[in-house]
C-alpha cells in the first residue's frame, strides 16, 4: 500500500457504462480524438439498471478509488425504465455508503448519451480530479494512517 | 499418509494423560484478590495472559449489556466480581474464528508455500511467541476444551490447534453464580469441577483459594511468589461455596440412555420438523458453543500471492453440506437433527462422551429462545 502514498499516485476509476448511450459517448470521444484522463477502466453493461450496488461496493473493496455509473438520460432508456430504476439504486447506495463513512466523491453517476462525447470527457475529467483531491482509497486497508 | 492413532474413548484418551499430569497430593494456596494483578504479572513472563473483560463498555450501544470475552490482559489490576461467563467461548483462543493456515505464491519456478511464523502460537507485539494462560476459565468451558482435544487428536494431529493447547495453562475459576440457562450438573460437571484445569480458584471473600490440580499448575505455583498457604478452614469455606453453587444449577436434562433415545428418534421426521420449526438456522448456537469445532477452508489470492484460511463454519447453514447436485441436509430440520445428534448421539458413539457441557450459551444467546434442554425433554 506504500505505493499508494507515492506522489505519482493516479486514481483508478471504474466505469459501468450502459452500452446504448454512455458507452457510445465514450466511444465517440475516442474516435473523435478527444482527450480524457486514462484513469478510467470501463465495463460495458447492457443498461445502467444492470448495475447492482454490490458491483459498486466490490469495486471499492478491490481497491478502485472511485466508481462511475453512467446511463442514458431519463426517458431515453433502451429498455424504457432501466435508468429510472438505476437512479433509485444509485441514490440509496451513494447516500448510505456516505453515511457509513465513505467519501461521497467515490460513487458517481451520470447520464451521457451516445452523442455526448464532450460530456463524457468532462465527467471523467471532473471525477478524476475529484478523486485526486480526496486521495487514494484506503478504506479497506488493515490500518489507515 | 496413514492414520497414526485412533481415540477410542474420552476416558481412555484422557485417563493416561491425566494420570501423567495429575498430582497425587493437592496443595492449596491463598491469594488476596487485590494481589491478582501482581501474580499475573509474574506469569506474564512465560505466558500470554487472557482474562475475561468487557467489550460492551467500549461498544457504541445504548444498551450497556456486557459483552464478555477473553481479552489480552493489559497489565492492570483486575476485579472479576462481576464476571459470570464469556459470550465467546475459550475455544476461540485455540481454534480462532479465522486463521491463516499457510501462504502461497506463484513465481517463475512455480508455486511455493510458507507457513505463517510459528503456526499455532499467539505472538505478542514484541514478536516473542508465548503459550497462552487463560485466567478465569469456567469448569464447563475447560471440559469443552478436553472434548475438542479428542477430535483434533483422533486419526490426524491438527498442527494448529494442538500446539496451542499443549502449551496453554488453564486457570479455572469456580462458578459461584451460574446462569439460569446453565445445566452443567446434568453432564457430570459441577461449577467447581477441577478435572480439566491446571489450577482452580475459588472466591472465598477477599481471597481466592488456589488449588494445584496438575503438574503444570504446580510448576506454575512454584514460580509464583507472594502466596500464603491455605488453612483447612479456607479449604472448608471453598468447598462450601462449591457445594452451594452446585445447588444453584437448576436446569436439568436426563442423559440416561440419551444416545439410544436419539437413535430411535432419528427417523422421526415429524418430531424433528416440530422442534425445528422456530429455529432460524443462524450460527449463534454453534459458533458460540464451546464444543463445536466445524470449520471451513478457503483460499484467497491477490495478484500472485495468496493464503489459505480456515474459519468457523456451522451445520446450521445449508451451504455447509451442499454438493453441486444435491444436499443431504437441505432442510432445516435435518440440520437441527445433526446438531443435536452430533452432541448427544454421534459423539457418545465415537468417544463415549456427550459433547455438551451445559454452559447454556445456546439457550442464553438464541434470538428465538430455541432451547436444547426442552428438545431433549420431549424424548424422555
Amino acid at each position, binding site marked *: 500500500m506504500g505505493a499508494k502514498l507515492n506522489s505519482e499516485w493516479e486514481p483508478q476509476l471504474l466505469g459501468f457504462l450502459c452500452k446504448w448511450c454512455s458507452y457510445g459517448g465514450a466511444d465517440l470521444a475516442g474516435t473523435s480524438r478527444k482527450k480524457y484522463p486514462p484513469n478510467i477502466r470501463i465495463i460495458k453493461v447492457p443498461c445502467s439498471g444492470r448495475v447492482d450496488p454490490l458491483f459498486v461496493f466490490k469495486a471499492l473493496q478491490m481497491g478502485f478509488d472511485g466508481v462511475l455509473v453512467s446511463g442514458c438520460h431519463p426517458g431515453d432508456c433502451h429498455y424504457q425504465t432501466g435508468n429510472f*430504476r438505476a437512479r433509485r439504486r444509485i441514490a440509496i447506495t451513494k447516500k448510505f455508503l456516505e453515511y457509513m463513512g465513505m467519501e461521497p466523491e467515490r460513487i458517481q453517476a451520470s447520464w451521457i448519451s451516445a452523442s455526448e462525447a464532450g460530456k463524457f470527457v468532462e465527467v471523467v475529467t471532473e471525477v478524476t480530479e475529484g478523486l485526486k483531491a480526496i486521495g487514494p482509497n484506503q478504506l479497506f486497508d488493515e490500518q489507515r494512517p | 499418509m496413514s492414520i497414526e492413532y485412533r481415540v477410542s474413548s474420552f476416558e481412555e484418551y484422557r485417563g493416561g494423560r491425566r494420570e501423567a499430569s495429575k498430582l497425587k497430593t493437592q496443595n492449596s494456596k491463598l491469594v488476596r484478590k487485590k494481589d491478582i494483578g501482581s501474580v499475573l504479572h509474574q506469569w506474564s513472563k512465560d505466558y500470554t495472559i487472557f482474562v475475561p473483560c468487557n467489550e460492551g463498555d467500549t461498544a457504541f450501544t445504548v444498551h450497556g449489556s456486557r459483552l464478555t470475552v477473553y481479552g489480552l490482559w493489559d497489565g492492570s489490576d483486575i476485579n472479576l466480581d462481576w464476571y459470570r461467563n464469556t459470550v465467546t467461548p475459550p475455544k476461540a483462543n485455540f481454534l480462532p474464528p479465522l486463521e491463516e493456515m499457510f501462504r502461497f505464491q506463484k513465481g517463475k519456478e512455480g508455486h511455493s508455500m510458507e507457513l505463517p511464523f510459528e503456526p499455532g502460537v499467539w505472538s505478542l507485539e514484541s514478536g516473542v511467541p508465548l503459550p497462552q494462560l487463560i485466567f478465569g476459565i469456567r469448569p464447563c468451558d475447560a471440559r469443552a476444551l478436553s472434548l475438542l482435544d479428542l477430535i483434533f487428536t483422533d486419526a490426524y494431529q491438527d498442527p494448529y490447534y494442538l500446539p496451542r493447547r499443549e502449551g496453554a495453562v488453564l486457570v479455572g475459576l469456580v462458578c459461584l453464580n451460574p446462569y439460569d440457562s446453565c445445566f452443567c450438573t446434568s453432564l457430570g460437571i459441577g461449577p467447581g469441577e477441577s478435572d480439566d484445569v491446571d489450577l482452580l480458584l475459588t472466591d472465598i471473600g477477599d481471597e481466592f483459594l488456589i488449588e494445584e490440580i496438575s503438574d503444570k499448575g504446580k510448576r506454575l505455583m512454584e514460580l509464583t511468589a507472594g502466596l500464603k498457604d491455605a488453612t483447612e478452614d479456607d479449604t472448608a469455606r471453598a468447598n462450601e461455596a462449591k457445594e452451594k453453587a452446585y445447588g444453584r444449577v437448576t436446569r436439568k436434562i436426563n442423559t440416561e440412555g440419551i444416545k439410544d433415545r436419539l437413535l430411535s428418534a432419528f427417523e422421526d421426521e415429524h418430531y424433528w420438523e416440530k422442534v425445528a420449526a*422456530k429455529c432460524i438456522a443462524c450460527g*449463534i448456537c454453534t459458533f458460540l458453543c464451546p464444543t463445536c469445532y466445524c470449520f471451513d477452508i478457503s483460499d484467497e489470492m491477490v495478484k500472485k500471492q495468496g493464503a489459505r484460511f480456515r474459519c468457523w463454519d456451522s451445520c446450521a447453514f445449508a451451504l455447509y453440506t451442499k454438493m453441486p447436485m444435491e444436499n443431504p441436509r437441505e432442510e432445516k430440520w435435518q440440520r437441527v437433527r445433526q446438531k443435536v445428534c452430533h452432541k448427544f448421539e454421534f459423539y457418545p458413539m465415537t468417544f463415549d462422551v456427550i459433547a455438551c457441557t451445559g454452559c447454556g450459551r445456546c439457550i442464553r444467546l438464541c434470538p428465538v429462545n430455541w432451547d436444547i434442554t426442552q428438545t431433549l425433554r420431549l424424548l424422555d
Partner: protein
Amino acid sequence: MNSDHKMQQKLRHEAKALLEQDKVDLIIGFEAGSLKFTTTPLITKSKDDLDRLVINPFIVNNLALFLPDFKGRIAVASKGCDSRSIVSLIQDNKVSRDDLVIIGIPCPGMIELRKVEKLTGKDRDELDDIIREGDKVVITVDGKGSEFPIAEVLSDNCLACEFPTPQDYDILLGEPTATSQESRVKSRESRVKGQGSRVQSHGEGGGLQSEASPDSRLQTLKAMSPQQRWEFWRKEFSRCIRCYACRNICPSCFCKRCFVEESEPRWLMPMPRWQENLMFQAIRNIHLAGRCTDCGGCERSCPVNIPLRCLTKEMYDLVDELFHFKAGMDKDAPPLMTHYEQEEAEDLIR
C-alpha cells in the same frame, strides 16, 4: 387486569375459534420462553397448545419471518412492525394475503432487556420481576421494587415507532394504540435535526436531544467526520462472527440464496474479517431498502452487540427522505425498487 392480559385472553379465544372453524391450518404466536422475561415463537396446528399463547412486553420476535416457510392458511399474531413486514412480504409476492389471518396487537412497545440490565446493573436472570404499568415499569431486584418511566426500558425502535397499531389486520385484540402522534413528530424533528448536523457542528441545540431520544446514536454518528464514521464501523465489524443471526431473524431477508453464498463469482469471502463483515452488512441494508420496518430484530439478536439499528434506521429514514416511501404500508403498492417517479433524486447525478 392489565391490557396485555386482556389481549392474551382474546388471542387464545380467537385462535381457538379459527382452528375450530377450520379457517386456518396453523397458528403462529408467542409462548413463554424457557428463561425469565423471554418469549419464544409458538407455531402449532393443535388446539391444545393455544392456552400457551401469551402477550407481554417481551414478545419481541417479528413473526412475519416464519410465514414464507409454511404452506396453507395461517393465523399470525402481529404487532405494528410485524404487520408492516407482512405487508412487505405480500408486496414481494412471498405470501398471499388470502392465506393469512392477521391477529393485530396494538403494541405499547417492547421492553429491551439490555436496557433493564444496564439500568439495574444485574443480568436478566438475577431480576425478580419486571412489570409494566401504563407508562411506568416496576423492576424488582432482590425483593425490592423500583419504578422507572417505561421510556427508559423500551426498545429504541419502539420509542421511534410511528405505527404501533398494525397497518393491516383481520382481528384487532384491543383498542388501537393512540398513534403516538407525539413520537412521530419527535422522530421527524430529530431526523431533520440529524440532517442539519451533517453540516452544522454537533452540540448545537444539543439541549433538545435528550439521552432517551431513540435516534441519538444516529445523530452522534452523523456528527462525526466520514473518516470517524468509517473507523467506527470498522471497529464494530471487527467483532462480527458472521453467524448471520441478523439476516436470518429478518423477515425481509427472504432470499433463498443470499449473495454471500454465491461462489461464482465470489462476492465476499466466507470469513469473519471486518472488510467482509462490513460489506455484508452494507449490501444487506441496501437490499432491505424499502423493506425494513425498523422492528429492531437484527440488533437485538446480535450476540456481539453490533449497533445494527444505526444502519437499518438510517436506511429507513433515507428511503422516506428520498422517495417518501415507508415499508409495508400498502399491500397493493409496488416494492420500492421496482418503481420510480419521473422526477426524483436527480441532484445526485451528473
